[in-house]
């Protein structure tokens, strides 16, 4: 059996992620699922946009493409339609996938293009220095919300469900076993699968909001997880001095499953020549 280490481009180590960042944990989960499912990644394409999350595809020894800011899903759509036999995975961030690339997420979900989109949601723009993201919670501080955020956060999963994604789940860097299971199920779905994954930017979001260390913040993922919250009541509670919650209360696990024919299936069901 292939090990996840065999799927790494070790010549590129050390990686560029910061200490305490949750992205490497998610990448590890992706690698373990891929190692379980594939002998090699000759026919697996990992498509990324721009941002910290998007840099991880470069470390994976598959067919990898680091595209432009927000547009990974558009490249991925072209790749999948041109060569439907390939497994296509999109790695994006919350700014990349929900702000600059929000429209592409809506349309990829609507089309039910057969690929898996994994959104690394760290509530901030890490690569550019911790600016406000569409997923930053109300009142949180960032380098472009120095008085506290005045806008509520997007719920990425609800957006994907509303737009027509056929498999939607929320995972956490906090719980890799559950995350691996979700990635596996997402890859099984014949259509557009969307995963919103909680992760933390320790260098900017956590520091700016005085939220402790990476490990403390990782623990808050458990605290806002409706499913395991009760079990963690004895652990540390992380709240800034003025008391706003650092994360919205969110459900995790599989949130939505509504199979319907994928874009490739619908395209191949139209006989050429019958036009109007």
């Amino acid at each position, binding site marked *: 059996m292939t090990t996840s280490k065999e799927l790494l*481009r070790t*010549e*590129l180590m050390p990686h560029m992620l910061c200490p305490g960042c949750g992205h490497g944990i998610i990448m590890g989960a992706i690698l373990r699922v891929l190692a379980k499912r594939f002998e*090699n*990644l*000759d*026919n697996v*394409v990992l*498509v990324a946009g721009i941002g910290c999350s998007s840099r991880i*595809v*470069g470390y994976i*020894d*598959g*067919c*990898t*493409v*680091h*595209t*432009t800011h*927000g*547009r990974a*899903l*558009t*490249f*991925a*759509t*072209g*790749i*999948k*339609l*041109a*060569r439907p*036999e*390939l497994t296509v995975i999109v790695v994006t961030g919350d700014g990349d996938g929900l702000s600059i690339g929000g*429209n*592409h997420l*809506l*349309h990829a979900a609507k089309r039910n293009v057969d690929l898996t989109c994994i959104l690394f949601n760290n509530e901030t723009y890490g690569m550019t220095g911790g600016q406000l993201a569409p997923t930053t919670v109300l009142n949180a501080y960032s380098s472009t919300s120095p008085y506290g955020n005045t806008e509520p956060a997007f719920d990425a999963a609800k957006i994907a469900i509303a737009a027509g994604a056929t498999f939607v789940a929320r995972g956490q860097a906090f719980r890799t076993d559950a995350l691996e299971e979700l990635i596996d199920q997402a890859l099984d779905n014949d259509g557009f699968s969307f995963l919103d994954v909680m992760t933390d930017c320790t260098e900017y979001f956590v520091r700016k909001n005085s939220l402790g260390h990476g490990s403390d913040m990782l623990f808050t993922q458990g605290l806002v997880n409706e499913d395991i919250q009760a079990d963690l009541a004895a652990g540390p509670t992380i709240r800034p001095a003025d008391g706003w919650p650092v994360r919205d209360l969110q459900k995790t696990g599989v949130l939505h499953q509504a199979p319907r024919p994928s874009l490739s299936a619908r*395209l191949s069901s*139209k006989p*050429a*020549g019958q*036009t109007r």
Partner: protein
Amino acid sequence: MVERRLIQGNEACAQGAIAAGCTFFGGYPISPSSEIAEYMAREMAKAGGVFIQMEDELASLGSVLGASLAGSKSMTATSGPGFTLMQEHLGYATLAEIPCVVVDVMRLGPSTGLPTSPSQGDVMQAQWGSHGDRSAVALAPGTVEEIYDFTIAAFNVAERLRTPVVLLFDETMGHMREGVTLRTPDPGSLWHRPIPPQAPGHMLDAFIPNDEDVAQVPDFGRGYRFHVTGLMHDERGYPTSDQGVAAALLDRLERKLAPVEDWFPPEEYLLDDADVVIVAYGIMGRVARQAVDQLRAGGCRAGMFRPTVLWPFPARTVKKATERAKVVVVAEMNAGQWAIPVEQTMQGRVPTVKINSLGIGVDELCEQVTAAAFTEAGVA
């Protein structure tokens, strides 16, 4: 196969794409280019390809680049506002060396402008629209038949040099119907992207150039595992912040386009003894050619130079065509965009006059050329 047909410029473009082996079209509706997407929507499936209407022009070109990475000859078509939105991906395609054809049926701008009016206003945008120092390839057909031929040629250049190729024509040419001879190209004459010589697998040399300075990047799904990025990269395709590597890469990307000038000979009309050389491309070339006849009937030794490749700027060809001229007149349907490099090429040797309009007829062009020739060079 040779076929004689009466067709519209936009349809000739779509037919040329199919003849060239295009199997992916990602588009977004915009006047005056929409007929290209409509034709491809109907014909791509019959040709065993894929048509998809994307959510905007950023997505159109994104899908085209994705399909090209997966091995399809890919194309999109748009007009000014959409072409503007595509600029980032044009820069990406240049740096990541992804073959594609982008058709810009030019309309009057800026902004929404006059969506159904012809213009040549995107000439500078085709070269300088994307950020950074970047050499573009832009072709300018002058007849409906040339639109067909140049679309095929655009795919050949894109594949051979792994670069985006822009086809520039205007609303009039896109919507004009002409009798054309469509020659199905001999399959052996069609270029395909260079195949990497190495064995499949983990690849550490995907961006090592061949003897034409073109990276031999494999298609996704052919057993090669490699990385593509819009960051400055080394010959492995991996990101680097080494400025020396970046400079060498930019230099190679420019160098590989040098032969394009020789692949697209200009139309030269009565240049041998011409005192006045009218430089005009696309639809303006047709006006200029008639103006030359009319000017000569009136005793003025005029000639025409119609370039068919606008970028990279064909400096050698322009120099040669104007070496005996006493005055050079650049007639464009914009405020004098291509006249800028023409004037630079003249280096003050002879006066360069700009004639610019939103649309000009033969008589008016003759009048303006006559006046300019007399004022600037004493040519009557």
